């Protein structure tokens, strides 16, 4: 029971921070989204030692572990556009499937090479 209360409190704190981030971005007319402001704010507070990792980490880990859930209602929107998608199916499939495959394959292998090269150069 205590664990669940702590979890809910921590999630509540993250909700509060995201609200604060939006507020700050709005107030200061920042060109970046409020969520990014909130990430930077929490990061800075952790770094400065004002916030302790243990105050937020259970809630953060829980939300991150279930990230996909929060995308599902937006993904159901596909049903509204079945005709459009069907009429553009080939092009969309090429860009979305083949394109994404190529992006991942190239950027992944390139980064892997760069990291291995650096490892080889580092003195053991």
């Amino acid at each position, binding site marked *: 029971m205590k664990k669940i209360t702590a979890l809910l409190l921590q999630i509540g704190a993250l909700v509060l921070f995201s609200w604060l981030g939006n507020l700050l971005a709005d107030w200061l007319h920042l060109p970046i989204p409020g969520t990014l402001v909130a990430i930077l704010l929490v990061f800075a507070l952790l770094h400065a030692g004002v916030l302790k990792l243990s105050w937020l980490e259970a809630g953060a880990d829980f939300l991150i572990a279930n990230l996909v859930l929060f995308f599902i209602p937006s993904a159901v929107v596909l049903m509204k556009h079945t005709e459009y998608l069907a009429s553009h199916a080939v092009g969309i499939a*090429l860009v979305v499937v083949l394109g994404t495959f190529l992006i991942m394959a190239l950027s992944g292998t390139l980064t892997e090479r760069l990291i291995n090269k650096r490892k080889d150069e580092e003195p053991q």
Partner: protein
Amino acid sequence: MIWVMGIFYVLLTLGAYLISKLLYRKTKFLLFTPFLIAPLAIAALLMSTGVEYDTYNHGAKVITKLLQPATVAFAIPLYRYSGLLWKHRKAMLIGIGSGILLSLGTTLLLTAIAQMDAGTVRSLLPHSVTTPLAMLLSETLKGDPQVSVLFTIMTGIAGMVLGPIVIRLFRIKHEVSKGLLLGVGAHAAGTAKAFELGEQEGAIASVVTIVTALLTLLVAPALVSLLGIA
């Protein structure tokens, strides 16, 4: 009565998510990834019972509201692995740059092959960018932001399925490269997949998602006006 149905749609979404998660965990079959199966199952159910998407989303959007605090939660793994991120900043920046250029390049090339109209091309260009910024970019490029959201979601689903295949096929071993390819190719959905692989992969992917979005926002409009796609 409306709020009762609202609760029903929230529970329906939760149920579809939990069942698909269990199914995926038991079978480990990539096409059973919850981000593919759950929305399809819900859409099929709604369409067969004649319920409009907007009616469903009126209730289910409560769940979407948690996306923002869940994204803020990225600050914690970022803080935990800031040393790792800093150490590989150069390799990551090159990897991200190549991913962005390839995303814009393949979109232009493949849409030309498929002979798609300019409007669809402009709406497809932001497809590797995380949703809120993809909408912004689509607007800048004079695409249709609503259509861009659609492509962004489809890219996320494709990336969650393709990411692990790419990692196996090209024998990607390092957690930085794994996180990077998922973040640069499939934004926040890829990041969710990266967190499944490991915390470090997830931290990398979340940074990569953000940097990819911001850099694409800078590069894409210039490229489009340079190539004269208007």
